[in-house]
């Protein structure tokens, strides 16, 4: 890292800490609701509003992703939905990629990353909108879910539902991309995994979100120690963001159990579109 990229001194006032706590709460709420971690909202906020360089914003973002992931996966409501076997298959790809990304990030131009990120999120937002009414569950609990499939009790159908996975190689490829995005931008890789698992691999949205919630924390911790060792994790700002996210994610998780899948998809597509435009604008400016 050239010395010129690092800020001479981060000015952290009580007002900055309060601002970051508030932003963390909003980010945590939306993140838990969508199973994508709060980082996706917080990192742009820390860049644009607080004025942190990307590496420091990403370092803080990774910490909030770990916090959101831990809280969501410790919650009893989503536990039955987690497909650990599928998650671990994808995790090998996501973690390896996140580690590689954390090593490479100091050598990559920022604008390239912004453009890539903007493109990927725009594609996925379009994909989500195109598949709003599609369902992946089989309403017969006796169906064999296969090696990486699963079953859970679904509130909307009021019965045990089974799903089989398909096109797992696509899931692995997306996990590689998700790990890379997590390791370079400090946002949860779930922003890529949840829509892809849902649309391409046949995993119901809630199972995809619950599995992804466990995964994003492990993916984040595959690169976070390197950020930490480089001094890119501002301790007071990370603490402020994490505490905000913890409060916000409780609200988001409570609300998530009550929202319908269609609205979750619509909301997610809107979020992805916003993130895409944000980074496109950042790239062009």
């Amino acid at each position, binding site marked *: 890292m050239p010395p010129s990229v690092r800020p001479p001194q981060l000015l*952290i006032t*009580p007002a900055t*800490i309060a601002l970051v706590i508030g932003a963390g709460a909003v980010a945590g709420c939306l993140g838990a609701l969508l199973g994508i971690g709060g980082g996706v909202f917080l990192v742009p906020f820390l860049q644009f509003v607080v004025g942190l360089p990307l590496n420091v914003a990403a370092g803080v973002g990774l*910490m909030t992703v*770990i*916090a959101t*992931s*831990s*809280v969501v*996966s*410790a*919650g*009893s409501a989503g*536990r039955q939905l987690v497909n*650990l*076997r599928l998650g*671990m*298959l994808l*995790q*090998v790809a996501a*973690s*390896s990629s996140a*580690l590689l990304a*954390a*090593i490479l990030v100091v050598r990559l131009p920022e604008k390239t990353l912004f453009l890539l990120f903007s493109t990927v999120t725009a594609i996925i937002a379009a994909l989500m909108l195109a598949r709003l009414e599609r369902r992946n569950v089989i309403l017969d609990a006796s169906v064999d879910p296969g*090696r990486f499939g699963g079953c859970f009790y679904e509130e909307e159908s009021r019965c045990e539902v089974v799903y089989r996975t398909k096109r797992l190689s696509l899931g692995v490829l997306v996990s590689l991309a998700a790990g890379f995005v997590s390791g370079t931008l400090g946002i949860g890789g779930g922003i890529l995994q949840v829509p892809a698992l849902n649309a391409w691999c046949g995993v119901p949205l809630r199972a995809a979100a619950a599995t992804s919630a*466990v995964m994003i*924390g*492990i993916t*984040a*911790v*595959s*690169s*976070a*120690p*390197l950020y*930490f*060792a*480089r001094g890119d*994790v501002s*301790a*007071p700002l*990370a*603490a*402020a963001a*994490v*505490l905000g996210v*913890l409060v916000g994610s409780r609200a988001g998780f409570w609300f998530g159990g009550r929202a319908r899948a269609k609205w979750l998809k619509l909301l997610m597509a809107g979020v992805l579109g916003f993130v895409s435009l944000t980074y496109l604008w950042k790239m062009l400016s």
Partner: protein
Amino acid sequence: MNEPDGMPLQTLAARLMLAGVTSSAACMAVGLLMYLGLADLSTANAVVTFGLIVLMATPAVRVAISVLEALRTGDWLFVALTASVVLVLGLTLGLALTGG
């Protein structure tokens, strides 16, 4: 290692993650109050940093328990997958400790 009957590994994992995130949040809250209260900044920094390290260890614990879950199923593919994740996390930690 014996595990108590009636306490599935999933439950153990959830409890440990909750304990990890709660204790790290407590450290961060105390450390942040010390920052704002203009206490000794190096102590405040140490307390917050300890909280961040506990936070980073929490998903690693989840992976460790996943290895046990995989071993219990006796599915070699599941065991190999979880072991690979442990390996990557070990590499990350090793690189971080040796300065990246």
